[in-house]
């Protein structure tokens, strides 16, 4: 089992190496099929693991293997593989979508200037993503966490000649790092207190009371419960970055600069879900306050992003905000305690959202070809205002859009209905029963179902707005429309597979009740509850009971809101009973705010980045022009001045004194020379004077 897992982890890395180091060969000989072969092999292996897991059919199925990575004597770090129901399901999803994207890209990326590089980076991405999934400790997840960040950076910037793509890739990496700082701090807190980062080690450490004992003098002996809350929130910050949660969501819409299959794989189905996956792994250690924070962030994101998706005209931007919104749902679910629902939505969303992205890629692909044919290089191939009426031209793509949109809107018989309904029921249950956590104590818990159902209406609305604008009505550009045609099989077949996987029964077998999540999934994934057994704590039994109660009303309400959303979109965009333009002008500020993404980017740029860069300039200026120039070089200059002063003093005083004494003697010598007359008589007189003087001196 471990060997299989290791193969799944490492094979994509091999694909990367082949694509990068044998580029010439690859590009001349259809070498992308090597990568596709490798990827299909991992898919087969993932299926094998899945079969073994289903064979056990045990919620507590788990295999773990650990090795010491390095050991410093009294400090060591480990690496290990954890195979449990969650990681096996994730592996399968990643391998499946990655395989489909590999195949789809043969057509979508055909003729690209950096074709083998593209496949290579898909390989390194899949490797890193599998690493996240298979990690058994928080340090290792952090390692692969950054590596998916790298692959995301490389793939968003695939067309780096465009400044917008280069900007977007940088923005993605740096924004993610902001979240990662928090995650790293959380990791350091846990490492310091418990001395381990292994998931199971952390859970048992907290459950067994080691947490209270291990704090010591950290933060001056912090309150164990408060510290655990903070550790949870800080670790969750990693998820805020990676899963594009408010307020770090800003990178994901920009990431749409990458090739569309990449958007499907990385920025819709898998990597962005890594944050949700991390939250799943930290779920047991979250205190009620931390859970409230998680739920609130998720709820805000779900609602906020949905409000932006309504007004976007770029087909990928709509889907991007939709992804942010759906990720918010998953996060909110985990925060409310609806663990199974959150993880379930991760899986169903991965399928239908990958489908939506690849389908939009199909449209964009056709648009590009059409624009190429009519030699139009200015028109935006992704702007829905240039589309319309495409359902006759692209019937398969259209059909898949319909299926996936019904799923995301929460219509029965589709997978999204089940998972979204479970999330909404969870938020309802949370609101009606939660006593613990700051949301409840501030009487704000009802805001979660409000966000949830609100976002559900909007989701149904914007998805059908997208469909009506793209596939219905008259084309606004008949010249493009003429040239449009359905995408080739390599693209449509993966789409059909994903559309099929948007049907409910794949997730509920052996049960086939379209209104109930009961089935294999809900059997193998079990809410683990909390390991926090001190202070306020999440009450699983209580929650499950309320969840059961909330199930029916939540379902009815969610059906109503979905119908409302679709109905309203039909009125505005299909039947045109209400004019979108007059709506927009009536809503005025709201419309403008939504259209401009509530000015978040502007806030970051003008409020944080620009002032900070100015600060950096000031630091650099201070360093060289002031500190170094005046103080350091000033010290040099002053030393020089003092030295030359000393030099002058030396010349005038010391040397002057020396010279002066010389002068004295010279003068003395000069003046005395006059007595050297050379006459003997004079000398005798001097001698006589001398003798007299001696006598006189002796006499006294």
């Amino acid at each position: 089992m471990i060997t299989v897992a290791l193969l799944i982890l490492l094979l994509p890395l091999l694909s990367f190496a082949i694509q990068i180091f044998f580029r010439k060969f690859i590009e001349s000989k259809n070498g992308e099929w090597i990568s596709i072969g490798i990827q299909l092999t991992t898919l087969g292996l993932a299926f094998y693991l899945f079969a073994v897991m289903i064979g056990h059919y045990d919620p507590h199925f788990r295999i773990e293997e650990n090795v010491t990575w390095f050991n410093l004597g009294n400090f060591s770090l480990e690496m290990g593989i954890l195979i449990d129901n969650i990681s096996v399901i994730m592996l399968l999803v990643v391998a499946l979508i990655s395989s489909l994207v590999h195949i789809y890209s043969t057509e979508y990326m055909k003729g690209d200037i950096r074709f083998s590089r593209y496949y290579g980076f898909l390989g390194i991405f899949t490797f890193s993503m599998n690493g996240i999934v298979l990690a058994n400790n928080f340090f290792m997840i952090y390692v692969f966490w950054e590596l998916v960040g790298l692959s995301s950076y490389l793939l968003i910037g695939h067309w780096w000649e465009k400044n917008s793509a280069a900007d977007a890739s940088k923005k993605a990496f740096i924004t993610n790092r902001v979240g990662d700082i928090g995650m790293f701090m959380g990791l350091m807190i846990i490492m310091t207190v418990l001395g381990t980062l292994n998931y199971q080690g952390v859970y048992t450490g907290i459950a067994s009371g080691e947490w209270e004992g291990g704090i010591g003098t950290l933060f001056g002996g912090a309150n164990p419960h408060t510290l655990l809350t903070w550790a949870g929130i800080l670790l969750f910050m990693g998820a805020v970055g990676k899963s594009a949660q408010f307020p770090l969501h800003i990178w994901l819409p920009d990431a749409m600069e990458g090739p569309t299959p990449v958007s499907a794989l990385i920025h819709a189905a898998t990597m962005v879900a890594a944050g949700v996956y991390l939250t799943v792994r930290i779920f047991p250690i979250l205190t009620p306050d931390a859970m409230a924070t998680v739920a609130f962030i998720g709820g805000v994101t779900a609602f906020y992003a949905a409000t932006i998706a309504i007004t976007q005209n770029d087909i990928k931007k709509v889907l991007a905000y939709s992804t942010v919104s759906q990720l918010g749902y998953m996060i909110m679910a985990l925060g409310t305690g609806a663990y199974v629902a959150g993880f379930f939505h991760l899986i169903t969303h991965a399928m239908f959202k990958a489908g939506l992205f690849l389908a939009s890629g199909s449209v964009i692909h056709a648009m590009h070809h059409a624009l190429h044919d009519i030699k139009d290089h200015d028109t935006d191939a992704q702007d829905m205002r240039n589309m319309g009426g495409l359902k006759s031209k692209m019937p398969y793509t259209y059909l898949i859009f319909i299926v996936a949109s019904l799923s995301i809107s929460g219509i029965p018989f589709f997978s999204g209905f089940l998972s979204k309904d479970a999330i909404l029921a969870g938020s309802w249950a949370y609101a009606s029963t939660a006593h613990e956590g700051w949301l409840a104590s501030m009487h704000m818990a009802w805001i979660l179902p409000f966000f949830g159902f609100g976002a559900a209406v909007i989701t149904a609305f914007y998805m059908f707005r997208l469909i009506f604008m793209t596939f219905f009505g008259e084309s606004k550009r008949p010249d493009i429309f003429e040239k449009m045609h359905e995408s080739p099989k390599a693209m449509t077949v993966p789409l059909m597979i994903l559309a099929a996987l948007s049907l409910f029964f794949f997730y509920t077998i052996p049960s086939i009740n379209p209104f109930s999540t009961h089935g294999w999934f809900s059997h193998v994934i079990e809410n683990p509850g909390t390991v926090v057994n001190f202070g306020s704590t999440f009450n699983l039994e209580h929650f499950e009971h309320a969840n059961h109660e909330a199930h029916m009303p939540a379902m009815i309400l969610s059906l109503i809101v979905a119908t409302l959303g679709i109905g309203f979109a039909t009125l505005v965009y299909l039947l045109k009973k209400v004019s979108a333009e007059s709506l927009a002008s009536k809503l005025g500020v709201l419309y403008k705010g939504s259209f401009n993404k509530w000015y978040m980017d502007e806030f970051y740029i003008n409020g944080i980045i620009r002032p900070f860069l100015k600060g950096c300039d000031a630091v650099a200026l201070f360093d060289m022009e002031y500190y170094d120039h005046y103080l350091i070089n000033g010290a040099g200059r002053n030393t020089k001045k003092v030295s030359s002063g000393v030099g002058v003093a030396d010349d005038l005083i010391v040397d002057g004194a020396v010279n002066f004494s010389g002068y004295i003697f010279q003068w003395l010598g000069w003046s005395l020379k006059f007595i050297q007359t050379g006459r003997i008589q004079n000398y005798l007189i001097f001698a006589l004077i001398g003798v007299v003087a001696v006598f006189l001196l002796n006499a006294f």
Partner: protein
Amino acid sequence: MENHLLSLVTFLPMLGILAILFVPRARVDVIRWIAAGATGLQLVVALIILGAFDSSSSGIQMQEHAAWIPAFNIEYFLGIDGLSLPMVLLTPFLSFLAIFTSFSINKAEKSYFALFLLLDVGMMGVFLSLDFFLFYIFWEVMLLPMYFLIGIWGGDQKEYAAIKFFLYTLFGSVLLLLGMLALYFVSEPHTFNMLILAQQPDIYSQSLLLGMNAGKVIFLLLFVGFAIKVPIFPFHTWLPLAHVQAPTAVSVILAGVLLKMGAYGFLRISFPILPHATLWFALPMAILGLINIVYGAMAALAQKDLKKMVAYSSVNHMGYVLIGMAAMTSAGMNGAVFQMFNHGTITAMLFMLVGVIYDRAHHRDIEGFGGLATKVPLYAGVMGFAFFAGLGLPGLSGFISEALCFIGAFPVFTWIAIGATVGIVLNAAYFLWAYQRIFFGPLNPKYENLEDINKRELYTLIPLAMITLFLGIYPAPMLDLMSATLNHLVDTVNAAGLMTGF
């Protein structure tokens, strides 16, 4: 058993100098290959030392003693342990590669390579001396060739940079000398032997010097001397200038090896000999580390000159070393020394790569490029590797050492470690922003005919990249070499007094 491997590894380049002296100055090729041969042999000897090294022992190995000036108890005393070994490996390795980078030097080659080898002797001597007097001699030996290497073969402001570097360092040396003499006179019996000095920490903390605690006074004297080399804010301003003006190979040595000497000095001399003062000064040191990280990163972010940005990134990266070692924990200390090694390899790559583009474009203005990735994909790839190594990407060695510094510092200097995490974001910001401006966007038409990196340049970079990658994936071999010694050091210092938290 006394072999003379350490003397051999130190003085091998001397033989190279001798040989070079006999070669006519016109035979540049011979001179180059002699230099390459001398450093190459030195590297081989260093590897033999590595093979003979016993990593389970925390003590000094392969000691060599010889009486030198017995009247003052001055000895020729060399030895190696887990602290010096990484540096002893790094020095000939970088010197050897830098010789090949120096092949593009085309002025007074004979003197250049002779001075370069002399510099090499000085560096090796510093890392191997266990007699403070001998250490000081080597410390000064290094200074002279560096002055000429910058002053003669440097860029536009080479004279200014050289004199500034020289005076700055000399200022530090004077304080170092005072500290050394003070130690000598306070110790009983008077000695320069570092091991004997380290056995009497209580004498320094209890004696007075100029009416003050002798240990603290000496620590501060040594601190300034070493801090200038690290460099620690506010003693860092020689660095951007010297790094930028020096020729590529000299920048490589300057950043790769010379900067390590300051930190090495702390760990070899200040920490074990003056543990009380070390603990007393640990917090200020960690704060200075934080300043280095944030201030260095902010200054790097503002630079327009690529080489200057890399220079400031050194200020930033050495900050991690400081917080790691100030914490006096096993993780922090090992992280700090590992970071010294990794910074050596990574920054060497960065400077070499800056040299590559400068040789072609004759400028280093970050804004003056644009879209180069299309034209020079291989160069862009290697640069990308080095930049990601610089920003601490997991899988590359810098990540592990930085992470260890953080994890080690966190329990002791919690808020400082938290503040320093800002560096993680800023690191990414300045490297990626520079990368984007140089390589992405539409191709600047000026560089339509830019040549990609050539084989010689590539082959000097590949070994560095391989080490960075290998130690990033599997750091245990390097950490195993040093952990015994460093854990012992941590225990010794901590035993001298209880750490005060912050």
